[in-house]
């Protein structure tokens, strides 16, 4: 508001302030409505998961429960076998993320710093990974993994996703590595650094922000993925959370409180991690959009 006082303008001051206030009120109303629209489904989910009788969910999902039936969660966890699914999602996400980042970093390192031959060829090959969707490999992966005897193992879930992650990581880290001044590398080499310790002591600290973005992107992508677990696994013990939740929903079509409890179980970890690491999360997603 103060900026207006020092600048001469055509309109009288009172009218200017009125217009600006009018816009602001409109903005507030809009935001509050949008906030309500965004939050209400989540709130109703939590309410539905805590209700004792199925009927009150069906008739009105948006009133708070009379009694808070925390037992629903235990029932969902046990009946839905979410413990196993949780473990699977975690295992796959951690392995895929680690493989993708480590191998991707080494690949980018070899291309940018070590300057392996045929660099442009590798670049083109990896870039194709960015523009081809997951759907392109689900059927052949099923075929190949079956032939390799790896269908219905954790490898089926890990390998295709890790393969794609390596390509993405390599390309994502390239700009960060290219930005490292050659003198830095040279002086480290002169100081007696070998190839491996260069990565650890010099490169790694410099690309840490990019790495944390990758961690967010890979973890989230793997955790929420529905298609690959659906196509490549049949054993219940191998299923991940989204798939487990989907089957849980199918198995308990009528029992909506149980469905709700299951959904909360699946959604909560990601939300908690997001709230705790908001900055990193948001930076990771926006960096992924900009550089991807």
């Amino acid at each position: 508001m103060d900026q207006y006082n020092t600048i001469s303008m055509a309109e009288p001051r009172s009218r200017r302030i009125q217009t600006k206030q009018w816009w602001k009120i409109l903005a507030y109303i809009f935001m509050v409505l949008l906030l309500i629209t965004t939050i209400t489904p989540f709130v109703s989910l939590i309410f539905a998961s805590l209700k004792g009788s199925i009927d009150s969910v069906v008739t009105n999902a948006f009133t708070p429960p009379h009694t808070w039936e925390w037992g629903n969660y235990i029932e969902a966890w046990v009946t839905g076998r979410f413990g196993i699914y949780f473990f699977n999602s975690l295992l796959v996400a951690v392995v895929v993320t680690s493989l993708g980042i480590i191998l991707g970093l080494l690949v980018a390192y070899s291309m940018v710093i070590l300057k392996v031959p045929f660099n442009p060829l590798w670049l083109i090959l990896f870039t194709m990974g960015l523009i081809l969707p997951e759907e392109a490999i689900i059927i052949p992966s099923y075929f190949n993994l079956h032939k390799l005897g790896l269908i219905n193992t954790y490898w089926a879930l890990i390998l295709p996703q890790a393969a794609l992650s390596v390509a993405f990581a390599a390309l994502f880290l390239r700009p960060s590595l290219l930005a490292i001044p050659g003198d830095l590398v040279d002086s480290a080499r002169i100081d007696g650094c070998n190839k491996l310790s260069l990565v650890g002591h010099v490169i790694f600290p410099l690309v840490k922000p990019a790495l944390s973005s990758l961690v967010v992107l890979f973890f989230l992508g793997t955790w929420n993925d529905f298609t690959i677990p659906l196509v490549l696994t049949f054993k219940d013990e191998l299923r991940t959370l989204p798939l487990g939740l989907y089957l849980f929903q199918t198995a308990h079509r009528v029992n909506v409180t149980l469905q709700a409890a299951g959904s909360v179980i699946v959604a909560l970890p990601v939300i908690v991690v997001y709230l705790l690491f908001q900055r990193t999360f948001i930076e990771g997603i926006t960096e992924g959009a900009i550089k991807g």
Partner: protein
Amino acid sequence: MNQERNWRNLWGNSLYLLPGLMLYLLFFLIPAFQNMIFSFYRMDSLTKGVFVGLQNYQSMISDQLFQSALFHALYFMVLYATIPVLLGLIVAIILARARLKGTTLLRCVFFLPYIVTAVAIGITFQWVYSPNNGLLDTVLKFIGLGFLRKVWYGDEATAIHAVGAIGVWMTFGYMMLIFLAGLQRTDESLYEAAKVDGANVWHQFINITIPSLKNDITIAIIFNIINGLRVFGLVMATTRGGPGNSTLVMDQYAIQTAFSQGDLGYGASLTVVITLITLIVSLLVMWIRREES
């Protein structure tokens, strides 16, 4: 000097490249090519395959389910490319320029739907769309528009829009973040100069904000088009392609044909089409990028 030779050692250097490259080739790139090859075969099982040339593609053209699935794919692409982008843009601009209280909270909440898995969100929305008692119907009754009530998931005419609306709800936060990042890069002094020249809020909007976001708008649109192709999880958790195939999406159709009906070849050809669509959209991104740099 031994060190120098170590650094130039081709085989040693390749060791850094090879693991990642091998993993990528074996489990992504080569399968992608295999997919194309499979699409020219009829495969009744994992062992028997007959080369049929373009037959799969020919049957696709007259396949009504394919036509529906393709049409729905286009629907989601267009929907995702417009409404969430617009909504995200408006929200981002308001948050960045209007200096409201609680901006951080709003930004945090609006992004929440994007990170929760689509299946959980699909389940959640059944209470929004449930006939007569769901939130949507309750609100409509409340504001006197009760006659607009429909059986949202059950009516072939409305089902896909119902799912689409969920998609808009899910993705606008992501769009908002892209624009917020872009707006942060805008030079504040441009706005100061404009105010000195007597520009009001609307002028500033048109002449400074929008042009500076041109690239972000393009990126956001293209990214969300790609999101629009990934509605499989959401559809499965809500309408499952029904009622009557009115929400059938390409992914579901491809997986159905390949695995439930055992025709891997046709399924492969369907995924080739999905791939082509994604390819065209992604190539657009890269073309824009080149213009940028």
